[in-house]
């Protein structure tokens, strides 16, 4: 019981719930202060890359996927969330080092606030996906609701991994460059712009070895195909996120307070 309550205290920053609330409020305010423009801006990035992939893979590579725009957008929007979360996870500890040295705050408080903000932005972008689905005549299945648990587990995963990256970044400042390369590689090793079935049998392992693989396959399964979420996929996603959540917990309770002295 003790472990569970300690876990939630540190994982959700319960000691600093007001701070998280106000930081998320600040982030959203600054983003949407210029009202409509802010929303357009936050959709433009992933939306534009979606259209570029659509053009390249549909008309240049001539990939044979029906209604490819919906397929690719449903992958690219959550992928934008993943890259944003991991990038801000990397930056938040080093970036706020002056504050950590002046105020007793948990190290994950900024990471949590940034991740919640990114999640809200992702949820705001989902109506855009609905819009293009509607325009292109893609029928929405009730199974799309499975997106909610999938995105929740994805949030747990990126939040935990981002925090761990942030801690490593304190000691190794070239992690930023390494990460941008790794993210680029991961993008192509994850079934985002292509279907899992298209991978030759002997290479299918990459979907399972890559923590994000099954997540994006499942997103396509429930949204694009309208299938129910398989127990198998659920188990794999839950295992990946639980594994990293536990690593996060042991790292944050074990070493993290000392890190302030190394900042």
């Amino acid at each position, binding site marked *: 019981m003790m472990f569970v309550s300690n876990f939630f205290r540190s994982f959700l920053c319960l000691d600093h719930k007001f*701070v998280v609330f106000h930081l998320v409020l*600040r982030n959203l305010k600054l983003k949407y202060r210029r009202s409509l423009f802010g929303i357009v801006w936050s959709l433009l990035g992933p939306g534009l890359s979606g259209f570029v992939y659509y053009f390249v893979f549909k008309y240049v590579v001539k990939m044979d996927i029906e209604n490819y725009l919906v397929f690719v957008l449903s992958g690219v929007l959550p992928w934008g969330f993943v890259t944003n979360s991991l990038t801000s996870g990397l930056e938040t500890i080093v970036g706020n080092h002056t504050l950590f*040295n002046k*105020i007793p705050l948990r190290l994950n408080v900024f990471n949590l606030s940034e991740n919640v903000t990114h999640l809200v932005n992702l949820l705001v972008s989902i109506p855009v996906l609905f819009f293009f689905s509607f325009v292109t005549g893609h029928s929405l299945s009730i199974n799309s609701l499975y997106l909610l648990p999938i995105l929740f587990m994805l949030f747990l995963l990126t939040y935990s991994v981002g925090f761990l990256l942030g801690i490593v970044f304190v000691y190794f400042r*070239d992690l930023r460059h390494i990460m941008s390369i790794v993210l680029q590689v991961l993008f192509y090793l994850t079934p985002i712009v292509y279907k899992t079935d298209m991978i030759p049998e002997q290479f299918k392992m990459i979907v399972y070895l890559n923590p994000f693989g099954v997540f994006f396959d499942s997103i396509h399964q429930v949204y694009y195909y309208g299938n129910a979420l398989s127990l198998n996929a659920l188990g794999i996603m839950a295992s990946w996120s639980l594994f990293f959540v536990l690593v996060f917990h042991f790292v944050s309770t074990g070493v993290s307070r000392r890190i302030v002295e190394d900042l």
Partner: protein
Amino acid sequence: MRPVIQAINVSKSFTNWMDRPHSIKKVLINLTKGKLDIGQKSRVTILDNVSFNINEGEFVGIMGKNGVGKSTLLKLLSGIYSPDKGMIRTSGRIAPLLELGAGFSDELTGYENIFLNAAILGYGRARTKEKLKQIIEFTELGDHIYKPIRNYSSGMVVRLGFSIATHLESQILFFDEVLSVGDLWFQQKCIDKIRELHRAGRTVVLVTHSPDQVRNFCTRCLVFNNGKLGFDGNPDEGAKYYEGLG
């Protein structure tokens, strides 16, 4: 008298790294040469087996030469650092004013920053609202309170930071040389405010280099010297001890 802060045999040292590699690239290159080089480290002791109690309602001045560990001590008492040996017990909410305006967000208005800063000190929206009028009044910022902080002068930022921290209900307040900022009149106003808080029964810990401040305001003085508590007692004698450190 109830002790609100107890430091029991507290020691703190820092690790100084020499030539520590700061990139993964460097570590890998070293590994290919067959050696794991993480650099040389040496320990520097800042505080060595320090013990003291601070009772509720005391106004304690902390003095000592630069680098003697005054700020480290406040960070230990605030829970920013943890001691290597010994332990620290505190009871009551602490407002650590180690730097005025720490945690402000440049793009937000002064008004919005009040809520953010109060949240960092542990106060929710409702409790901040109760004190809002007093906080704003004290800053003398007028309509500037509705402008983004990035347009503030450093003095205005300091006024806001000080006002927020001192108007909330924290039982223990730490000030780390923050009185040397702001103009003469605002400094006086801050000192009056701190004394008012002390009269109201709050516990105040002030790090300062001014023997006059210690003589005039404090009820007790701690002077640190070479990692030890060199003096603990009457402010007049403490100020004299500090002046005699030479």
